[in-house]
Structure formats: C-alpha cells, structure tokens
C-alpha cells in the first residue's frame, strides 16, 4: 500500500484547481513516476493526491492554424515521440524524451510531470528551453502564460502556486520553423540512468551564405536549473559555419558553464564533456539543416 492520505480524481482542469485549493495538503499526480517513488521513499508519505489523468483536454498534441504547437501536459513521453506533428515539426523533442528511463517509464511519465518536478536532470527541459517554449497554466480564474525559463526557480522548485495546473507546453511557430535541433544526454549507462550532463542545441543556418543565423544552447545538470548559454549564443550568432565555429563553441561553453562536483562526476569532467557535447550537437543541427560542415 502507498501511504496516501486522501485521493481525489479530477475530471476537468477547473475541478482539479478547486480540489487543490480545498485540500491544502494535496498535490497533483499525473503519471506518478516521481510522486509514487517519493511516497515510497517516505519523502511524500502521507500526502493527499489530486489525480489529473482523466482530464482529456491536457492529453495529446495539436498544431494551431498559426503553426503554434500545443503539447498537453498529460501527454506521455512515448506518445510525444510517436506523434506525427512532433516528428515533422520538432523531432528533437521526440528524440530527447525517448532517452528518459526505459520503455515502461516512457509509457507512463508525462512532459508536464517532468517540467513541474523541477529536476535539473529532466530530459525534456533543455530542449523545451532551447525552443523558447511557453507554459500555459490554469487556475480556474483565467490562468497565465509564462516563458519556461522564468518557471524554474531552483533545484526542485518551480513557479506554481496552490491551485495551479500546467495544461500545455506551447512551442510558438516562429521558435521552431526553419530551426533544427539535437539533444545529447551524457550518462553512465545507456538506459535507466539520469543525465550526468545534457545539452540541447537548436539552430538556424543560412545554407546559401553558410552562416549560423541563430542558435540556442541549453544545458541540464550544469547549474541548479536548466541553463541557457546566452554569452556563447551571442558570440556564435552570425559566424560562418566552419571549424572555427566549432572550436569557438567548445571553448566558450567551458568558460560559461559552471557545473558542480558530485558523486556522479567531477566539475572538471563535466566541463570537458560539456564543451564536447555542445560542439557535437551543433554539428548535428548544421548537418540536419543541410549545411556544409567544412
């Protein structure tokens, strides 16, 4: 038996918001792959749960007329990876979440749970940051929309108030159209392991002029929250696509990120790997754009 005090099942976002306000000791459960583990470990023992699995409106992926992509917070990783809209428009996100845990976890874990958990190792986070995603949050009273980088407050802490539910991760059309992305997860094991360091690069290349027009680089596990390398991005923008570009990203990243020592890996090791995976991810995005590597 799980040590759960009370269990409430919400059928709509409004009902979930009302239940959360009515029961101040309760928290949301979606896939449960973080919450149930924490209950089992005792960290959340005795909590009450508001289940949002039966809320249809937060499941699945749709593309609006203006091209914006809405990913329901309750969509599981495997459904994201297999979704035709994701495969066509933002394959990098489908590939990133295909690196979470193992198949059973990907069939149950949701993107909403991954983001709201606030873990810096979350495999969806670097790509969601590099795509400049917006988060739609509902509270039954009009709600709000926030850029993802304002949502992460610290390790395990996100900007969610009591009674608020993340309903959609929105990728605006202008943030993905013309861009290509690549995510690299560096971990000790190939599967069932969380990232030692991870990096998602999303770039736009002018293949005629052979110029890197725009680039966004986000690291997981390099800081207390997912970390956008804005200095490096500014330095790379407008550079010709050649070996110098790849050398610059590698060196600049090692200046900009400040990973910590942990039992998983030392700071020096993470700096070394960081420069390397950022470079490799950028090279891959240029290849995907059909750009010239040399």
């Amino acid at each position: 038996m799980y040590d759960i005090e009370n269990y409430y099942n919400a059928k709509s976002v409004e009902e979930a918001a009302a239940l959360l306000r009515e029961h101040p000791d309760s928290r949301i459960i979606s896939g449960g792959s973080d919450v149930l583990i924490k209950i089992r470990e005792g960290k959340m023992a005795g909590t009450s749960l508001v289940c949002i699995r039966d809320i249809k409106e937060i499941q699945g992926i749709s593309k609006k007329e203006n091209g914006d992509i809405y990913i329901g917070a309750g969509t599981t990783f495997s459904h994201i990876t297999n979704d035709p809209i994701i495969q066509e428009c933002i394959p990098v996100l489908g590939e990133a979440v295909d690196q979470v845990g193992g198949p059973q976890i990907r069939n149950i874990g949701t993107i909403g749970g991954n983001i709201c958990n606030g873990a810096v190792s979350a495999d969806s986070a670097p790509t969601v940051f590099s795509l400049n995603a917006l988060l739609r949050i509902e509270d039954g009273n009009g709600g709000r929309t926030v850029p993802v980088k304002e949502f992460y407050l610290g390790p395990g802490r996100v900007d969610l108030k009591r009674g608020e539910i993340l309903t959609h991760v929105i990728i605006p059309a202008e943030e993905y159209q013309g861009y290509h992305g690549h995510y690299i997860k560096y971990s000790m094991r190939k599967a069932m392991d969380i990232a030692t360091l991870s990096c998602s690069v999303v770039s736009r290349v002018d293949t005629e002029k052979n110029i890197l027009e725009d680039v966004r680089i986000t690291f997981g596990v390099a800081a207390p929250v997912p970390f956008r390398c804005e200095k490096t991005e500014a330095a790379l923008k407008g550079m010709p696509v050649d070996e110098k570009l790849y050398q610059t990203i590698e060196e600049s990243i090692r200046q900009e990120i400040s990973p910590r020592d942990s039992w998983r890996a030392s700071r020096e090791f993470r700096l070394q790997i960081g420069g390397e995976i950022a470079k490799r991810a950028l090279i891959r995005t240029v290849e995907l754009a059909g750009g010239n590597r040399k």
Partner: protein
Amino acid sequence: MIRDKVLVKCIVNGKEVAEYVDPRESLLDMLRNRLGLTSVKKGCEVGECGACTVIIDGETVDSCIYLAVWAEGKNIRTLEGLEKNGDLTRIQEAFIEEGAIQCGFCTPGFVMSATVLLERGEVLTREAIKKHMSGNLCRCTGYQNIVNAVEKVMKENAAENEGA
C-alpha cells in the same frame, strides 16, 4: 483518511473483472493478491527492474508504480494470458531454447516486454532490441541469451511474413 474502496472494472487476460480496490493499492498488488496472477513479480517496487511489467492497452507498464484505480476501463495482459490451451507462445519457447532463463524471476517481465515488441511486427537491429528491453533487469543471464531469443523469433516472424 481513505476508508472507502473503489469499484474498478477492467479486462484482465481477456476476461471482465470487477474488484473493489483500495485507492492506495498498486496494480501489482491487485493482480497478485486479488486475482492470484503471481507471474507479476514484486522486485524493486520503484520502477527500476521491470519484474512487474504488464501490458496495458498495448503498452508495457511497471505495475508497481501504477495505482489499481487507474485500471478502470483498461485492457490488461499478464503472462498468464499468453498460453493457449496449455501451449506456450513462440517467444516463451524461444526463452527456453536459448537458455534465457536461470532463476526465472525476471522472465515474466521480459516476456511481456518482448511480446509487445514482437506484436508490432517490426524487424529491429540487436541494438534496438536492447533499447526496447532496457526497462527490465536480469541478475543471472547476462542478457545475451534473452536478446538472442527475441531476435530469433523476430527473424522467424519476418521469414513467415515473406513466405506468405
């Protein structure tokens, strides 16, 4: 405090089931303790080992981190539902032929993961097979024979499809 049990209706191994469950109960406990389906093994209970793997609406799930109340309306398959008239399925036979079983504790979970994979009818590389089986741990066999068994049946199925 939770006092009331909740009625859950679902299909388990092709049969309709209606059980009153505790909302704190895992699907693993419901399957083992209420339905006697003891092929569903209790290993780590935190989603790491895959010993408790069952198939829900065509997808593999660790039943230890799945609440029993979530089973409402679902189609659930366990190892007990695979055999037909006492005959094992081809993948079960292949596990025996390839020596993919030692203590056997992980076997039902592996067989369920292999079953969904084979039912998809894709022909995959060894690497891809390993990725699909990566949510299941085995402390005895060293995995090679398990992958051999899956690969063998995958090739047989592909040859049959070509012949047809």
